[in-house]
């Protein structure tokens, strides 16, 4: 009797289990958690998420972590193989690490078979989602496109006296700079400490990646690169083009307002809005405040794309992030996450995302007249997204970034040594990291 009861119980449990597994699907998921850094675009994503809930009944919670803590928290969660989130809007530089360590779901089949991969600009797909480079394997859907651009004071540029003085001093008309050399001249021209005005604001912060991102704009445009086709850095990172770029960036810093020795996006907007800088570099994602009443120069603020290098090459340091699926959640939640991406990637939803203030990577939306005229900086953004370039995204990016920040800061901010010495030392340290990681041979 007891034996029969035990067999019956086992059968019931087995059936319950089987049924449970077979019926547990995406439809059972009633909420999704998306993890992102704490900033305005995350609020916009929450609004889009609310509309997803209205459409599907699945609630979307966007959990935000301050930027300074974001990577460390994510790293800890990865270490614990945590399931506290379903999707993550992660930085482009993390892709290699996340992929090789198994934290992201492979989205290649999902994105190519559904055609989603074809809806976004190739550069964003490559830098936000693809790993390894040119492999055709995708791990993130480009969500928040971003790159460096420039804001400038049109009132200063269009002032008749300034225009005449500039032309007399430099031999050409004062206008939006087309080359880095022109930008340097304009920065020098507007550096008038006695009037409390300085030519330019550039990134200098050295605790994560700011100074590297700022420098990259000049570095890439001067024809320099972080590595060659075989991932070698010796003679590449410290090439003559790289040295010239570093010298120019350090010169730009000499035209920056005092106290910007540890400056990033917040400080850039601050020196612009308090009238200290005639031009500032910043990520487009941080420009909305310049088009608000907080900016006393709102009406006379203009925006332009990165100038070109000596050979006409033009690149902008990539910011922004792609959305990826956490590999440690169960299959039902993974499917629900993919369903959200499918919905989010639709053109009308991307248009809505852009309307709210998110920087879409959707080709059609980027090219639409509505988007281009939505804000004073959208046109510059759309143009910039066609020539973006990024830092390393291999798992060792952190070990490569740390000496980069250190040597750039030592030369640019502290004025230690020469540009050649700084880049020679950097190339040697990066070379050692790459050899130890097995990326290149000794």
């Amino acid at each position: 009797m007891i034996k029969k009861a035990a067999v019956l119980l086992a059968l019931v449990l087995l059936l319950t289990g089987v049924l449970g597994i077979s019926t547990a699907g995406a439809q059972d998921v009633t909420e999704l958690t998306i993890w992102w850094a704490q900033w305005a675009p995350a609020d916009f994503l929450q609004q889009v998420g609310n509309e997803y809930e209205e459409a599907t009944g699945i609630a979307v919670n966007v959990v935000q972590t301050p930027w300074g803590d974001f990577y460390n928290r994510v790293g800890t969660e990865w270490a614990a193989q945590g399931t506290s989130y379903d999707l993550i809007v992660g930085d482009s530089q993390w892709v290699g690490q996340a992929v090789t360590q198994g934290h992201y779901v492979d989205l290649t089949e999902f994105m190519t078979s559904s055609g989603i991969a074809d809806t976004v600009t190739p550069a964003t797909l490559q830098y936000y989602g693809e790993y390894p480079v040119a492999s055709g394997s995708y791990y993130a859907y480009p969500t928040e496109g971003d790159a460096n651009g420039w804001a400038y004071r049109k009132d200063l540029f269009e002032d008749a006296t300034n225009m005449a003085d500039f032309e007399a001093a430099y031999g050409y008309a004062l206008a939006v700079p087309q080359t880095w050399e022109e930008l340097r001249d304009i920065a020098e021209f507007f550096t008038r400490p006695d009037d409390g005005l300085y030519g330019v604001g550039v990134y200098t912060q050295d605790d994560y990646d700011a100074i590297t991102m700022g420098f990259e704009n000049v570095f890439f445009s001067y024809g320099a690169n972080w590595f060659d086709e075989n991932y070698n850095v010796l003679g590449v990172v410290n090439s003559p083009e790289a040295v010239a770029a570093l010298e120019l960036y350090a010169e730009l810093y000499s035209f920056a307002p005092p106290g910007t020795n540890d400056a990033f996006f917040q400080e850039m907007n601050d020196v612009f809005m308090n009238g200290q800088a005639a031009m500032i570099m910043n990520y487009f994602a941080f420009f909305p405040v310049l088009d608000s009443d907080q900016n006393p120069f709102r009406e006379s603020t203009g925006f332009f794309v990165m100038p070109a290098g000596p050979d006409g090459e033009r690149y902008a340091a990539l910011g922004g992030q792609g959305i990826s699926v956490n590999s440690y959640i169960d299959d039902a939640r993974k499917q629900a996450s993919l369903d959200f991406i499918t919905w989010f990637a639709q053109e009308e939803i991307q248009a809505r995302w852009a309307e709210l203030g998110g920087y879409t990577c959707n080709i059609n939306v980027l090219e639409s007249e509505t988007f281009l005229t939505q804000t004073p900086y959208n046109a510059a953004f759309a143009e910039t997204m066609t020539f973006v370039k990024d830092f390393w995204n291999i798992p060792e990016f952190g070990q490569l970034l740390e000496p980069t920040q250190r040597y750039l800061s030592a030369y640019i901010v502290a004025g230690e040594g020469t540009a050649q010495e700084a880049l020679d030392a950097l190339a040697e340290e990066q070379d050692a990291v790459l050899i130890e990681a097995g990326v290149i041979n000794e």
Partner: protein
Amino acid sequence: MSQISTVNSVETARAQRMPSKQRQVSDIRIVQLFILPTIILLILMNIFPLIYSLYLSFTNYSVIADVPPQWVGLQNYQTILSDTRFWQNFATTGSYALVSVVFQTLIGFGLALLLREKFRGKGLITTLILVPMMLSPIVVAVFWKLMFNPSVGIFNYLLGYTNINTSPEWLGDANLALWAIVIVDVWMWSPFVMLLCLAGLSAIPEYLYEAASIDRASAWFQFRRITLPQVMPLLLIAVLFRTIEAFKQFDLAMGLTSGGPGDVTETVSIRLYKLAFQGQYDTGMSSALAYVILVVIIAVSNLYIRALNKARGS
């Protein structure tokens, strides 16, 4: 009859009040019950991480990689001890700790001597002087960063610099950045030294000074032969605490300069943080560095404790 029943009922009641032998809890058991959770907590939160991180210091391991630790023996320690940059970090930390603690001791002791005197508003002034050490270091770093700003900060103005073009950039100048951290640390922690010294000074018996005065001892003699020896044990404790803290300096320096410009203010703790987190996640190497720091702090502390015992003995 009634007497018998009364006696019986009293005995019954007494028997009910008496706990049975099985339900009795001995004093030792009570002690164990109170101590056991603490011991378990200590083992889980302190002893285990300590031993586990010691093991990790002999491995090549990254906490976020899904790869088990690989035993590398003493390689991490060799790398640390043979890398000139690590030594530079130690030198930076050592110079910072030395200068900072010396100034804190001098200022703290000086303030304590001043506050030993009786005057109107002494309590209020003492409380106000103690305010900096009650603040969060990161908050202190943020507002001092603003004060050091050559454009909008007040620090240069107070020093007499009115032209921002010639004002020093405290946090951006490689020669000044470490001094800037020292200034903030001294401002924040001199009150701590003062507090301990004040406790020592108030414990000195008044009759010692009276006897010295009768013998016509000079103020300097009284200070050297009475005040200093009497305060010395507490002063050494203050110096010990401040040295240990200065050697572990992280929050103020991170908040003010993040170790920059370049790495001129990169203390060992900031280096440890960058190695353990911030993109590198080199858990094995950072565990080894943490142990090197621990050994150095224990060694320095021992020197102080010996001096402390000597002072007490004399």
